Structures are given as structure tokens and as C-alpha cells.
């Protein structure tokens, strides 16, 4: 019955047979070649499928790059060509060993086969290791996809207001891009709060900011506490309600409408040292808004905020007006980074899209690599058991073909993501 032609029975032994000798030739095939050819055709169909599977991401990439080239030009600075190039090399090496493994299996060179398979696995792990380094680096810097994109230190586009000894390192807050965008006309608007990392909340950005533009007011200053919503709390996981003080010179009336609702308080001890904190203010549209923001920042710290510490503010494109910018990440930016950031200017709006695509593409590719590792480990075990013979080496060939495709995709991803000029 069905189970009899399950090839991987208990009798795993080294069937160095000829013709029908291999125990792995399944019942319903005419002979070894028939099985091999069928499998090969199958894997080619599978690879075709894979091309289409990835194609959608390439479509997204091409579309966004074609229409928003400035995002790509800007964002690629965040990627490190060095790591990308090393990973390309690693994958090519593993591709070679995978191809060689096929040859070894065909020629019954068991030792070489095992060596090649092992090397492939090691390279694959190396690849993932490097990806891990890159990913964690980005996580630390807040260079993430979608709404999580908010670079903490790479603030070429962000004004940095750094404060020392403020809030004992626990309170943090910042203004999301919307704030400044929305309040260009208000004089004396100030930020006196601290931030480690900025999360722009989805629903807040979605529909709640516009009213600020609608009623610009003038008048007295107000200080308000920004409530934290439920979602934020789960993200922040802190016991006390952070007090974020946003001081608005020249605003009056009921506090709420004047306060930008898009505040987010977050804490990430990995990013910032406890005694150094920074508030980031983005201005997505430099030409229109940039100057006003600068003017805003020249104002003195609001009275209610000053008692908490000094404010050093810096605007990267207009010189260090308030003192040196203090970069507060554990992974300190290099000199090169700083120069680069100076040159880059503010990020275009929706720079996050690049990282959405970056993470989608490399993530999906990474999953493929991971899957490949499992397959190769399985092959390695079988190779050690001596399952493969010149009549039966199909699985190695198929896995190698799959692996080459994974390599191929990386060959395209590397220049597309890392080597943008």
C-alpha cells in the first residue's frame, strides 16, 4: 500500500546499487533517470514560481524608486555597502560549494560531498549572522520600516535638542513629524521634552493633526500633559506616566486643540544613555517649514521646562547654534557618519518606504536562506549516512538549484538596495 513506496523507510543504509539498486528510487518511476528528471523538472517549476513570488517585491521596489527617487537616494546612506558586499561574497562561496556538492555526489566522492555541504551551511549561517548584525544596528538606530522609521542618531533631517541630566533618563517624549509640519505659523513654539526614540502612531497620524492648522491662535503659554494611550503603554511598558511638556508660547484657549496630539512617549534604554536624551523634531518639508522651525528653536526653553535642565539644541543644517549635538546612541556614529549626515539634509517624506521595502525584500530572502539551511542540514545528515549515489543524488541537485536561486536574488538585491548612487 501507500507506505511501501515511501522511500525513506527505516532502512537508510548505503545502497550503492546500480540501476534500480538504490532504495530511494520510488516505485512509480520507471528508473533512476525518470525519477531524477521528474524531480528536476519539478524543481525548475518551483524556481519559476519563486521568481514570481519575489517579483511582487521587485514591482514595489521599482515603482517606488521610479516615482520617489529622492527617498532611495537619501535612504541608502543608512545601509552599509561593506556588509552587503561581504554577504554577496559569502553567498557566492556557498553557491560554489553547493554546485561542487552536486558534482561530488555524482562522482560518489563522499568526503568532498560532506565538506561542501558543511561549508554551504556555514556560509549560510554566516550570511544570516551578518544580516543579524545589520538588523540589530538598524533597530538600535530606529531605522525601521513603516511607522517605526524614526532614526534616533542619524538625524540628518532632524533637529536635535539634547539635554543633559534631565528627567533622570526615564522620561522621554518627542514630536512626530506632523507637529511641526502642522504648526508653521505659530510663534514661540517650543519643545522642551526629551526623547529616546520616536514612534509615530498610526491612528494619530491618520486623522488627528489637521485641526491644529485650522485654528492657529495667539496668546498665553500653556503647559500640558500628554496622555498616553493604551497602545502606547504596552509599547512603553513603564510604570509612571511620562510627563511631557510642550510649551507653546502664544497659545491660549482650551489646552487640547492647541496641543499636537501626535505625541509618543517611548523608552529604549538600548539607544540612549540614561543621562543624555534628545528630542527630535522632523520637518518633512524643508523649504516651507525649515526656517520657522529654526526660529522656534531659538526661543528660550519654556519656563516650566527649564527647571529640569539645560537645553542644547542643534540644527544640523544651520550650524550648532545651541551647542554641540550630542549623539546618544550606544553605537556612536563615526566621523564618516557625521559628515554624511551633515551632507544629507532632512529625509524626504516617506523615507520609511525604502526601509519597508528593504526589510520586506531582505526579510523574505532571509527566510529563504533559513529554509535552505534546514534543507542542507537534512542533506548533510543523509550524506553522512551515505544515502547518495551516482544514481540517486537528486535531492542535492535540487537543493543546490534552490540555493543558487537564493543567491541569484541576492545578486540583484545587493546593487538595488546597497549600491544606490
Amino acid at each position, binding site marked *: *500500500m*501507500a*507506505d511501501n*513506496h*515511501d522511500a525513506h523507510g527505516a532502512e537508510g543504509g548505503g545502497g550503492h546499487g546500480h540501476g534500480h539498486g538504490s532504495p530511494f528510487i*520510488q*516505485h*512509480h518511476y520507471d528508473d533512476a533517470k*525518470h525519477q531524477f*528528471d*521528474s*524531480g528536476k*523538472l*519539478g524543481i525548475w*517549476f*518551483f524556481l*519559476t*514560481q*519563486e521568481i*514570481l*513570488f*519575489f*517579483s*511582487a*517585491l521587485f*514591482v*514595489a521596489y521599482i*515603482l517606488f524608486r521610479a516615482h*520617489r527617487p529622492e527617498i532611495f537616494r537619501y535612504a541608502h546612506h543608512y545601509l552599509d555597502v561593506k556588509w552587503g558586499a561581504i554577504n554577496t561574497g559569502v553567498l557566492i562561496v556557498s553557491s560554489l560549494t553547493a554546485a561542487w556538492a552536486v558534482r561530488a555526489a555524482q562522482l560518489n566522492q563522499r568526503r568532498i560531498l560532506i565538506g561542501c555541504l558543511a561549508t554551504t551551511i556555514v556560509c549560510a549561517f554566516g550570511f544570516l549572522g551578518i544580516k543579524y548584525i545589520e538588523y540589530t544596528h538598524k533597530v538600535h538606530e530606529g531605522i525601521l*520600516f*513603516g*511607522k*517605526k522609521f524614526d532614526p534616533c542618531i542619524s538625524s540628518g533631517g532632524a533637529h536635535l535638542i539634547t539635554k543633559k541630566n534631565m528627567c533622570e533618563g526615564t522620561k522621554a517624549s518627542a514630536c512626530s513629524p506632523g507637529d511641526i509640519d502642522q504648526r508653521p505659523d505659530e510663534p514661540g513654539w517650543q519643545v522642551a521634552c526629551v526623547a529616546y526614540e520616536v514612534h509615530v502612531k*498610526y*491612528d494619530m*497620524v*491618520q486623522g488627528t493633526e489637521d485641526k491644529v492648522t485650522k485654528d492657529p491662535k495667539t496668546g498665553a503659554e500653556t503647559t500640558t500633559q500628554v496622555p498616553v494611550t493604551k497602545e502606547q503603554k504596552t509599547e512603553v511598558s513603564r510604570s509612571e506616566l511620562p510627563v511631557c511638556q510642550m510649551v507653546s508660547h502664544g497659545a491660549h484657549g482650551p489646552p487640547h486643540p492647541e496641543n499636537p496630539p501626535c505625541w509618543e512617549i517611548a523608552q529604549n534604554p538600548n539607544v540612549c544613555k540614561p543621562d543624555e536624551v534628545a528630542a527630535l523634531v522632523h520637518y518633512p518639508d524643508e523649504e516651507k517649514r525649515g526656517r520657522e522651525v529654526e526660529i522656534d528653536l531659538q526661543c528660550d526653553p519654556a519656563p516650566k521646562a527649564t527647571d529640569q535642565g539645560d537645553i542644547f539644541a542643534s540644527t544640523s543644517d544651520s550650524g550648532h547654534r545651541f551647542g554641540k549635538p550630542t549623539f546618544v546612541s550606544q553605537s556612536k556614529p563615526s566621523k564618516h557618519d557625521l559628515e554624511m549626515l551633515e551632507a544629507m539634509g532632512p529625509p524626504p*517624506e*516617506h523615507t*520609511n*518606504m525604502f526601509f*519597508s*521595502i528593504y*526589510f*520586506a525584500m531582505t526579510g*523574505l530572502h532571509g527566510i529563504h536562506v533559513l529554509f535552505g539551511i534546514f534543507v542542507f542540514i537534512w542533506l548533510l545528515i543523509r550524506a553522512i549516512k551515505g544515502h547518495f549515489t551516482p544514481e540517486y543524488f537528486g535531492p542535492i541537485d535540487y537543493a543546490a538549484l534552490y540555493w543558487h536561486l537564493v543567491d541569484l536574488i541576492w545578486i540583484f538585491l545587493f546593487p538595488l538596495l546597497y549600491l544606490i548612487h
Partner: protein
Amino acid sequence: MASTTATAEPNYFEVSKGFKSWALTLDHKRIGLMYLFGILVSLLVGGAFALLVRIELFSPGETITTAQTYNRFFTLHGAVMIFLVIIPGIPAALGNIMLPIQLGAPDVAFPKLNLMSFYLWCTGAALLVLSIIMGSIDTGWTFYTPYSLDPSKSAAIIPAVFGVFVLGFSSIFTGLNFLVTIHKFRPAGMGWFQMPLNLWALYATALMQVLATPVLGITVLLLFVEHTLHIGIFDPTLGGDPVLFQHFFWFYSHPAVYIMIVPAMGVVSELITTFSRKPVFGYRFIAYSSVSLALLAFLVWGHHMFVSGQSALANMVFSALTFTVAIPSAIKVFNWTATLYKGDIRLQTPMLYALSFLILFTIGGLTGLFLAILATDVHLHDTYFVVAHFHYVMMGSGLVAFLGALHYWWPKFTGRMYPERLGQTCAVGVFIGFNLTFLPQFIMGSRGMPRRYWDYDPEFTLFHRLSTIGALILGISLFVTVVYLFASLKLGRKAPQNPWGGSTMEWQAPTPPTLYNFPEPPVLHELYDYSDLVEDGDNGWVRKSEQAKAKAKES
């Protein structure tokens, strides 16, 4: 071979028993049967949702449920019917059972992969059930962004899209398996143009499954990631493009329509030739048109998006390309009609379904022209006209052909006959019920009744009522059909080897087939040659030449 009913070899039911022998089986027939069971159950579930939708629409305003529940009903109806019933219907269930036998092969190329596809299907189905438990999706089966990005609905959408992702891979692996099987397991002497048309259709279908489904996979995967990580490729608030989602989605989902209809065309070709006792008219044209439909399927997805904010240029190109699809479809209809010409038509249940198919498909196809014409589509898009059109194509044609094929091959793979008179009655019931359901919808649609409406203007009441009554007739007929099919497993008359006089290879296999289908290698006869077959009472149809040989042996 020939009179093999008395083979010593046990048939595939008898080979082994017990739960494990089914759960771990690698036999394509058992896997196919398990699919069939799952699909019939899903059909009833999806049908129940459809009836609930129709009953709600019996009167304007709230009839039995709120708008929210109604939205879930039609979403689930769509998702279940499309992903769980029609797409796997003919290929995965009937194709699995019949494809190797029609090829004269012992099994599909990759039996383990086949079993895995089945379990993927089960997983996908389970995830959809989970999504119902988690609050149920109400996005429509199309999951259009940004509506489907609503974070408050994540709990239901995440399992649903992941389920669809898994189902997609089930479909891909099935297609891959069939492609390789057809390539590598044709018996000596069977060239591409000696293949039964059903196999051509399955080949074309599998090609689309392999090429189009991965795009669905990545699309729903992205949707999944949007919900878990909010990466924003489709989210306009983050700079994404919601119209892009529709491109992604329809790149798959248009071919998906052909994944549903092309195998239906395949089985109908078989049914019509067998029951008119005539070779198919214009074999090559039908074969080519199957493959060309498969290729053209990739060029026309934009016609789902004429008013979506797609550009005028794209609208023009897609409209023009869409018309090309009409041509192979028209060829097929003409050729089938010509096959009937001067035939000896027997109106048994499968043939009734095949003829229903012809009529329904013609209506479905011709109304498709309205939707391809840009000027009229703008008016008709997203109205009941579209609803009626695609039901004519997908249900009226796809499902009716599935039922025809089911009745046609039922005796072969179960070894039992279904009750013929009841079958004919239900076939007529399905036809009448179907038309009563959907013809009024064409009229409503052309008068501007938008789809997915829980409530409607009173002027449409009459049409909605007709439609609901039709749906009830349809539902009852389908339910009775499923019941008598299951009952026939126990009560049915034992089936002869060749009850319909089919000339293709599957009728040479024992009834029901043995484990590897053919105890002796089958003989390759000329395709669709009925001159040799004669009726022999309860023994079904036999070949004259072999009867003579057997007689000669005896004497």
C-alpha cells in the same frame, strides 16, 4: 486487460484499512477523495453563507441580521467558495483522482508533495475557521487596502490572510505536481496531441497555478506583515499605495478565474464528446485555446480596476487585451456546439450538467463583453451586473462542470452508481435555480444596484425576491445532490467498468481502481474513437474487438 472486474488485486479501498492508512496515504486517489470530502463540506458551508446573504436581501432594510453580520457573510461566502471550493474543486479533487488514471500512470510524480498539498489545504481551511472564531473578516474576499488594514480587525484578518497564503501554496504544489506528471508520465505513444482534452485543460490550469499563485502568496504575506509590523507598502498614511495592492491582487486573481474555468472547460470537453458519442470537433483548437487562455490570463488583470483610480492609459491597454480572451472562449463554445452536431446525445446527468454549462458559460461570457467595454464597464462595475456575470462564469460554469465531472467519474472512483433519475432532477433544479438567482441580478445591475449592499432601494425588491427564491432552489438541489452522492456509497448499484462508454484511458482501469490503477498496462486506443464501443446491458460499455477476442478465446 478489458474485463478486469474479476482481478485478483484488491482495489484501493481494500488495500489497507484504518485511519492511519488514509491520513498517511500517498495514493493519489485517496488524497483526491479526502480533498473531495473537504470540498463538498466547504461547498455546503459556503452555500449556507450564500443563502444567509440572499435571505437577508429578501426585503430592504434589516431582514435577519445587521449590516456588520451581513458583511461577514458575504466575505466568508466569497472566501470559502473561491479559495476552498472552486479553485481546488476540479484540479485538486477530481484532477488528483483522474489525472494519473487518464494518463495510464500509477500515481502523480510526487506523491508526498501531493499529500503535503492536501495538508496545506487543511491548514488553510483551519485558519479560515480560526478567523471566523476570532471575529471573522468583513473585508470582502478581495481584502482591498486600506480597508483591510484597519488594526481593529487584525485578530480576524491575520489568520485569514495567512490561511489564504497557505492555500495558495497548496495550489502551487498541486499545479507543480500535475505539470511534472503530465510531462513525465505520458505513456509511450501518447504524444501531446493524443492527450485527452481534460489533461490539456489541467495542464493549462497548473501552469497558471504555478505562475500566478505566488503573487497572491506574496500579496497576502505583505498584508500579513502590514498587520503584524505595519510596514506600510499599501498604507497611504505611511506613503504606500493602495492601488498597488489591487495590481498585486488581480495579477493573481484574474488568472485565478481561469484556474476555475479552464479545468471546467476540460471536463466539459470530455463530457460532451462521450455523451454525443462523437469525437471532439476541432481538437487542436480546443487544446490551443486552453493554453492561450492560460497565457492571456496574465495580461488582463487591469480590467478589474477600470474605475479604481487606474490611469486612462492602463485602462485602454487592459480593455483591448481583455477582448483577446473572448476569442479562445468563443472558439471553444463553437467547437462544443459543433461536436453536438449529428451526435447521438444521451441526456444523462453529466450531460445535463455539460449542456447547462454551455448555456451558462455563453451568458457569462457574453455579459463579460459588457464589462470589457470601457464605456459600459464604468457604469456596471461594482454593481449586481458584475456579481451576476462572475457567478455565471465561476459558479454557473465552474461549479456546474465540477458537478458534471463528479457524476461522470463517480462510478469509476467509488465503484457505485448514483441514482440517475434523482441526479437528472437535481441537475435541472440547479439550472433553473441558478438562472432564477442571477438573471434578475443582471437587470438590477444595469439599473444601478451596487454590490455588497446590505440594504437597497425599494424599487429593487421584486428582483431581490426572485433572486432569493432562485437561490433557495439552487441550495436545495445542491444539498440533495451531496446527500444522494454520499448515500450512494452504501446504497448505490455496483458500477460497471465503463458505464458511459468513455473512450479515454481511465475507463480501462478496474472499477474502483487498484492501488497503482492498472494491474496490466492499459492499451492506448485512438482518442475519442467511439466506433468500437457498444452497450452491453448492466456491464456498461465494452469494446467490440475485445469482446470478439474474448469470445474467440472461450471457443
